[in-house]
């Protein structure tokens, strides 16, 4: 059992390391075509949007996802904090406090 857990972690670690390092080695060695660079230039906004929005949804296999209303509610003060402060730290702190308040009063 313990060997199984250990081996699983070792193998998964190698898989993860390869996914992260191989692109660095390839990009260092070869010039990327302009079209690929243009494609990748949209990566930051697309992946961040996808990761953020995924957290507002609850997956339901075979059906459209549901909204995680607590997260959606807490998003509102976090977005307002972002617009006003333009500071990552303030957004995170406001978000945590908002979520604690929402859970305390059982909103959503």
């Amino acid at each position, binding site marked *: 059992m313990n060997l199984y857990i250990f081996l699983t972690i070792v193998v998964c670690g190698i898989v*993860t390391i390869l996914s992260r390092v191989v692109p660095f080695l390839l990009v260092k060695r070869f010039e990327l075509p302009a079209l690929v660079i243009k494609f990748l230039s949209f990566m930051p906004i697309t*992946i961040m949007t*996808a990761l953020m929005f995924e957290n507002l949804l609850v997956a339901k296999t075979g059906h459209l996802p549901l909204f995680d209303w607590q997260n959606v509610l807490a998003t509102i003060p976090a977005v307002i904090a972002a617009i006003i402060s333009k500071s990552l730290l303030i957004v995170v702190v406001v978000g945590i406090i908002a979520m604690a308040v929402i859970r305390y009063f059982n909103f959503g």
Partner: protein
Amino acid sequence: MNSELTFKAGVKDVVPTLFGYIGVGIAFGIIGHTSHLSILMIAFMSFWVYAGSAQFIIANMILVHDPISAIAISTFLVNSRMILMATTLAQYFRKDSILNNIGIGILTTDETFALAMNKLNRTKQHLTARWQHAANLLAYLIWILATIVGAWIGSLISSPEKFGLDFALVAMFIGLVYLQLITDKTKGFRTQLLVMLFVVICLYFSMAVMSANIAVLFSTILGCAFGMVIDK
């Protein structure tokens, strides 16, 4: 965040994202504990795999005794977006040594990637290895510590989510997306908003037919293609 690219600036810039690591790290430690993983194994997984969402899935699959090959494939799929992020980030370190590239690649996460993309907007599209190492190493260290603390908390309390810490990750992405939106001058504000809207719609519908992680990857790729088409 300013235009400085020293090691010290890297440490300073990464601080706000650390809340995300702490929140999710503690959550992972607790889940790991309830999945009957020892603190040693939880710490080892954070040290060796170092990938938030993959670690949750690995812990879950270990619990139900899935074969190692299946767990490895799931890990690859969950982490496949790292290939895209690493390819994007690597362009800024081509002049650095192989060892620096490996060091940066091995510790690239969603958060440090996003942070680096934000930083680029303030440094005239330029990054340094020492700035990236500082951000990466601190995030890595905090992640390992947070998961260990989580495993310990897991043995003490039953519902840590009431403190709202788990929302730190979402809040962090909200902040990062917003900062990206207003500071990335290489693309128009309207173009970026359209791309965001496209990704949101795409993710919503694709999550009905594929797992959330694959849906994120799928929407990201379609979103980039969409961006190329509308940004003439």
